[in-house]
């Protein structure tokens, strides 16, 4: 499975992000960001399925929630940043 990781500026922001997505019926799980994608050391991200990313971004935009960065988590375990 391919997932997207929506990196957030703080744990609380990630919780707001996940709550907004869950309210809209999109499964969203909060994770500590993998070290490979974490530039500042210790951050949190919200994991969503590949098929839900577009809808998720629309919902977050409506809610005024801005992802810091977004990464694609490929099946081989690698990460690739996605332009916002």
């Amino acid at each position: 499975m391919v997932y997207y990781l929506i990196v957030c500026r703080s744990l609380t922001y990630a919780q707001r992000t996940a709550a907004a997505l869950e309210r809209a019926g999109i499964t969203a799980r909060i994770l500590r960001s993998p070290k490979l994608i974490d530039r500042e050391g210790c951050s949190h991200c919200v994991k969503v399925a590949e098929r839900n990313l577009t809808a998720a971004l629309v919902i977050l935009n409506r809610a005024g929630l801005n992802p810091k960065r977004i990464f694609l988590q490929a099946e081989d375990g690698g990460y690739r940043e996605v332009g916002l």
Partner: protein
Amino acid sequence: MIYLDSAATTLQKPPAVARAAAWAVDHLASPGRGGHMPARRAAEVAFACRQAAAELFGVESPEQVVFTCNATHALNIAIRSLVMPGDRVLISPWEHNAVTRPLHALGAKLLVAKAPLFDRKGLLDAFEAGLEAGPAAVVCTHVSNVFGFILPIGEIAGLCRRRGVPLIVDASQSAGCLPVRQEELGAAFIAMPGHKGLYGPQGTGLLLCGGREEAFPLLQGGTGSASALQSMPDYLPDRLEAGTHNLPGIAGLLAGLRYVAGRTPEAIGKKESVLIRRGAQGLARLPQVRTFQARDPACQSGVLSFQVAGMDCEAVGEALSRRGIAVRAGLHCAPLAHESAGTLEEGTVRMSVSDFNTPAEVDRFVWELSRLTAASRRSH
């Protein structure tokens, strides 16, 4: 024991508060410090508490709800965020040492908006005049912790907004028993304890941040975020929450917030006001007792100060304690308030109620005080 010292700390709490705090000790770790279940559960409880506070107090986002140790801690952050050494700061005459001591330590020049006790119009005029001096900030309590005077905080906030002067509200005595809405006040910061009208455990407090002013982190340290950087994060709440959270306290506070939201602050305040009027009417029948009661009941919360002629206030407090009644005597950490009311030399005895007091308890308090004053008359 009849507990009438809720202005210091509410002792009787909803049973869910102790249950939640005890459960947290065994089940919650540190939010944001791990991906394991105890850390995730802790993060969920902390977020739920922020959300509950944001809803109850009309705060735009849960990120603007910062956990502190108490209201004093929250006020210190707020004051350090807005006041520079030597700045002029306008305050009410009813401020607690939690406001005046940090301002004194900063070397701030205090402008006091002087007006008689329970005089709302006079106070507003004094604030309007004080704002002419161009203060860097206004710090104002919502309710006097000594006299229960409910200050016209909405109108004071309006004056500050029109002048563009940031406002810090000390909601220590109003949070949980009066409507306090950040969105309506537009305050830069609102500070409150968790352990009084919100019925949380001691060691909890909240700072509601307006979000426009940069907040000053009193403590520096780990936040579980941006750990590679040596400066504190520039976003809330992390910027103001260095170190491990008091999760048992936060879990208990969440239970307290849910209780208050279910009852509503308006209903709790109304009950407390009725109890205080009952107590004041009872004390007014005792010849030696002087009460500090507002003519307009809408001006007074669940706090009442009184003095007994010929008796030291501490002696009255001690004597009531021996009769199973807990009140507080002295200056109540608010010498400015006592100076403003002319009671700095003698102090007062303060009774203060919560949602868990009953009319029968208030009547028993009045009866015990009547016996005490009668005994005092006989001994003279």
